[in-house]
């Protein structure tokens, strides 16, 4: 197996040195919700505050220059990480805001066009007519579903979705039947946070672009875990969060094709995103600034760049291989357990490290509670992907997610924790 040197990596993460529930070793299997942060990231953020802190892009004094430079250098580092141009990366507070930014571009373009207000060149692409269609999939996180429901509710556009197969994959047949010339955007995840499924982006892009629709890729569960290159993907937007990839809380990213970002009206408006302001009208800056109103989260950008450097030093291909090995091992181990059913693909092909499962006759909350008592921190519930639970007729699941600081022994701890739960609740297996 191509595993990383987990002990060495874990030593960089202060929190992994602590214990939980009366002295249990912390087995953190909830990186799919948020990852832990290495010292290097915390140091970078702190150094920004202790040496260079100022409001970026607003001052001409030395601190402001340094802060602006740190912020924009961070943008460059992050852009390069996904093969993007610097100016095509917009910082948001999280992936959720990034996705909303695009959904609101549609709303705002539609409203302004409707009232004959001035719009950037090319904004027509974002103008919706009654009956235009938006396509998502049934495996979306709420963050990539609810904003589109809302957009439809407010514009008269219609939400459609691509279904799932019984074995936890996208139903690619739906691409043909669901997409059509009225489809304006296909918003879909690269990797399901509940099922672990990795989608065939190429097939989706081909189908979407074939009918003239844009593609927004929810990359929350891919950018942290595998090499991602926006050019190779061929999509139009990707959105992801910093906090799931060793970075600080409070920062997310939207990448968009330059000509699309340029064509989009602003979302949140205020200072720093303007070109000129008069009492009765304003004009707006070019992207990315147009979408970054207010004093931005510069320290968090610097921290995220440090996270990128940390991951680059390991190598994203190695990160992916490590997780793949752990996932294969976990699928095997859990698959062998009586009374345990995996929700999602059973084989590790095109599959990330989110492993969701149900234990017969024990509610996920109760499974999670017993695991927690053993120091094994997993997530229980619908994982913000409630429709997936409905699709597979489970009220909720227990979910383990792995990252660079997890090793085989963590999977073993998971397995023995599940056994304890079965014993505790007297479930005969």
């Amino acid at each position, binding site marked *: 197996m191509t595993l990383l040197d987990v002990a060495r990596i874990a030593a960089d993460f202060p929190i992994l040195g602590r214990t939980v*529930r*009366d002295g249990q070793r912390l087995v953190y299997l909830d990186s799919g919700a948020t990852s832990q942060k290495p010292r290097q990231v915390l140091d970078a953020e702190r150094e920004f505050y202790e040496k260079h802190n100022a409001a970026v892009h607003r001052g001409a004094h030395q601190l402001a220059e340094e802060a602006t430079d740190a912020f924009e250098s961070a943008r460059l580092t992050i852009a390069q990480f996904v093969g993007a141009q610097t100016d095509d990366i917009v910082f948001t507070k999280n992936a959720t805001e990034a996705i909303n930014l695009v959904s609101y571009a549609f709303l705002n373009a539609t409203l302004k066009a409707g009232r004959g207000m001035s719009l950037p060149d090319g904004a027509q692409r974002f103008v919706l007519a009654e009956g235009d269609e938006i396509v998502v999939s049934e495996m979306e996180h709420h963050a990539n579903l609810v904003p589109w429901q809302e957009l439809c509710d407010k514009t008269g556009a219609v939400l459609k979705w691509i279904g799932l197969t019984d074995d936890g994959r996208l139903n690619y047949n739906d691409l043909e039947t669901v997409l059509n010339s009225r489809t304006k955007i296909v918003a879909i995840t690269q990797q399901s946070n509940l099922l672990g499924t990795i989608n065939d982006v190429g097939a989706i892009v081909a189908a979407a672009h074939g009918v003239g629709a844009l593609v927004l890729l929810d990359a929350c569960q891919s950018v942290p875990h595998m090499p991602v290159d926006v050019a190779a993907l061929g999509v139009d937007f990707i959105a992801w969060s910093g906090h799931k990839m060793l970075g600080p809380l409070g920062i997310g990213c939207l990448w968009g094709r330059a000509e699309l970002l340029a064509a989009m009206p602003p979302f949140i408006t205020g200072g720093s995103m303007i070109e000129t302001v008069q009492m009765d009208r304003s004009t707006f800056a070019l992207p990315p600034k147009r979408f970054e109103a207010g004093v931005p989260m510069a320290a968090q950008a610097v921290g995220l760049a440090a996270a990128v450097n940390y991951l680059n030093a390991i190598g994203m291909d190695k990160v992916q291989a490590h997780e793949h090995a752990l996932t294969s091992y976990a699928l095997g181990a859990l698959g062998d357990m009586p009374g345990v059913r995996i929700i999602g693909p059973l084989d590790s092909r095109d599959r990330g490290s989110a492993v969701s499962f149900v234990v017969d006759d024990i*509610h*996920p*909350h*109760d499974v999670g*509670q*017993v695991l927690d*008592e053993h120091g094994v921190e997993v997530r*229980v*519930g*619908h994982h913000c992907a*409630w429709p997936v*639970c409905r699709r597979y007729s489970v*009220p*909720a699941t227990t979910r383990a997610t792995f990252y660079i600081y997890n090793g085989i022994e963590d999977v073993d701890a998971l397995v023995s924790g599940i056994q304890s739960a079965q014993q*505790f*609740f007297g479930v005969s297996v």
Partner: protein
Amino acid sequence: MKLENMYQEIILDHYRHPHGKGLRENVDAQVHHVNPTCGDEITLQVTIDPENPDRVIVSYDNQGCSISQASASILFDQLNNQSIQTGMTAVDHMVAMMQRTEEPNEDVLGDGIALVGVAQYPARVKCALLSWMAWKDAAIQAQGEESHA
């Protein structure tokens, strides 16, 4: 093991053999509450006995973890056929016990005092309270109906 504090035998009994589960027709109020973090849900109904307004019939159907299921079963034991006043007192006390501002009082909660261990797991408090908050909501609605009638 600390787990036993939360999962006392009496809780597991209620969970395995819930009391009073099942919905009725023609009720005065019906509410549907969910725990948005985990998807647990309960449909809870109250019917005020027309002969005796101090007798409030409780019926419910639910889905969820051992704590939320046991808690509903206990609620049924405690509040079925009781007055709204009694129920409100019990709800208030249950909430206070979960917030650790009151010591468990068996006279008010019956088997419910066994839920005291849940208070140490803030993320599970909602499970324990789901049915109780639903009852409160339904009772207020039923009372409203009553006074409009």
